[in-house]
């Protein structure tokens, strides 16, 4: 039973990790929390669902198209809601703009797609039994896609020019500019990469639960944000680590203590971490107010 709960936790943890990366990367570069991130994810998932259900697009093409759409939407949000006001030292304005964007996207989705829960099931869902534990095809898929996505991201951030430029921007955006880096493009790219990952995560989670709805981003986003904080916001390994920890803690807590407090466990851990180690588990020593 323990291992089954652990496995369930790791799987949802993988989803949290992928979403948390978007928060953490944007924070690393711009020092702002992109509150619209989870709603961009929701939009991408809806697009995936529509492509699969109404246009019968093949699965892999559907995932790629939807994730690409999510990436473009993520970049558009940055262009419209953040870039015009981020120049001066106005982080509060950006924060409010982000919250506004989140509300706008959520309500737009309710208007366009309706407020009900839609079904979304395109992957194999056979259950397999390994050493007394049940694992479904969907769960295996989530674990492997998470692993592949994280690997690609790792290579991109640490082995490519774009990655070097992104890391340079997160150290100091002004100095990066002086070194001839087109910082606007890098910021756009960071939003795009984060949103792409979120798009993939959204399609996976929508299929995992067979539910797509306009408010699906809210709780998922809060948990992923908690994961980013837990790991140390701005840190890429921290976001991944935090995602898995949050997933496992919530699964074990709900399994052994009470399912009524399932969502409370993640936030309790986040609060404890903020008190004990404000920079997060793998974060830099330097403390910023979010």
């Amino acid at each position: 039973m323990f291992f089954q709960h652990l496995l369930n936790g790791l799987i949802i943890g993988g989803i949290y990790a992928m979403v948390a990366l978007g928060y953490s990367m944007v924070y690393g570069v711009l020092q702002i929390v992109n509150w619209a991130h989870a709603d961009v994810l929701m939009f991408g998932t809806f697009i995936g669902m529509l492509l699969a259900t109404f246009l019968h697009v093949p699965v892999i093409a559907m995932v790629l198209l939807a994730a690409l759409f999510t990436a473009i939407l993520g970049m558009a949000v940055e262009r419209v809601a953040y870039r015009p006001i981020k120049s001066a030292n106005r982080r509060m304005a950006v924060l409010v703009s982000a919250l506004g964007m989140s509300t706008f996207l959520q309500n737009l989705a309710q208007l366009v797609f309706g407020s009900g829960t839609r079904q979304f099931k395109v992957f194999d869902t056979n259950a397999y039994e390994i050493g007394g534990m049940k694992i479904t095809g969907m769960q295996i898929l989530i674990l492997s896609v998470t692993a592949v996505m994280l690997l690609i991201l790792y290579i991109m951030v640490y082995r490519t020019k774009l990655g070097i430029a992104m890391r340079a921007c997160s150290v100091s955006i002004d100095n990066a500019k002086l070194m001839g880096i087109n910082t606007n493009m890098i910021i756009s790219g960071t939003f795009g990469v984060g949103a792409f990952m979120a798009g993939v995560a959204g399609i996976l989670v929508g299929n995992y639960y067979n539910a797509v709805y306009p408010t699906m981003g809210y709780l998922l986003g809060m948990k992923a944000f908690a994961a980013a904080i837990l790991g140390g916001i701005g840190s890429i390994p921290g976001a991944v680590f935090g995602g898995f920890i949050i997933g496992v803690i919530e699964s074990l807590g709900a399994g052994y203590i009470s399912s009524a407090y399932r969502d409370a466990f993640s936030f309790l851990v986040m609060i404890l971490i903020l008190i004990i180690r404000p920079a997060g588990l793998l974060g830099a020593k330097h403390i910023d107010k979010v």
Partner: protein
Amino acid sequence: MKRDLMKKLMSMVIASTIIAGCLTGCGSTSGATSDDPISIGASFPLTGSIAADGQTCVDAINLAIKQANEAGGINGRTLKLETGDDEGTPTSAASIANKFVDDDKILAVVSSYNSSCMLAQVDIYSEAELPCISPVATTPALTGVSDFFYRTAPNDADCGSYAGDFLKEKGISKVALFYENDDYGLGLAEAFEAKCAELGIEIVTTQTYVYGETVDYSTQLTATSGSGAEAIFVCGCVTEMGLICDQRSDYGCGDMMVLLGNGGYAPALLDYNTEGVYVQGEFDREQSEKAKEFVEAFKTEYGYEPGNWAASAYDSALIVIEAMKECDGDITRASINEKISGISFPGVCGNYTFVNCNSTKEELMFQVTDKKFALIK
């Protein structure tokens, strides 16, 4: 200076309250001219995760009103529906109730979907002596709560004990209880627990989830699969029930018998993996000519099948309309209330008379067979 201003303000507030009070008082005596339309209020969740369930109730009420208007209305006066979107949240529900109460043209209300919302509204309607019939609010806490409240919805106390009896009949001795963490889920779960204790059925695990939010049932189902339960009983609404049914086989609960409370008796349930699942309900579409006619009329009007709650909402509206027809002379909130309290009315779900706010219709059991609800008992 400041004090003076305060005094002035206070006196203005008091004066305006008195004037407003007089105006509404005068309005209700002189407002009822003979050909004004009569309004019926309807507060349901029209946005949010159960918007579809709220909409189906409003559709059913609209159908009843349309049919009544086509048949000549009430003494030549037409009926009109005022809808309010309570979003399934008690705070919105209370503000809609206040709006209805202040509207002199509204003489009766059919409301609301969620037990929590109904509990928030019921005192507001009672104080204004505005009669209200609820088609869906089932919590035992509403029994005998007011002289102006009635429900065509069943009482959870009866549903819970009916579920217990059914499991006993099926030879189940260990059951897992799932409930949504609100007034509806808790009320039904408590009634079910009491009945199980009486019948000697052991509740081996109790799992809960958040209505409108929880989509991941992995921990609840994993805990259930290791608990030795032979059956799962779910107290909740249709979306969550569908997801539980969908996910159950992934976590080792695929072979367990599943019994859903009457929140599951809606066409949306059939889109999920629910073949063979037992569902409680009150509406048998084959039961009477009236029921068949209702299903046909509803399908032609809206293009989809009515479920348990649509039928219950239709009955609520019919009862309100019938009470208005029975009023001789002035149709007022008070005269409608008097007629409802003594009514004996055959609706599409059975015969209604009201005792202690509750109706006397029967509880039924259905099984999902070939993507349809088949009556088994």
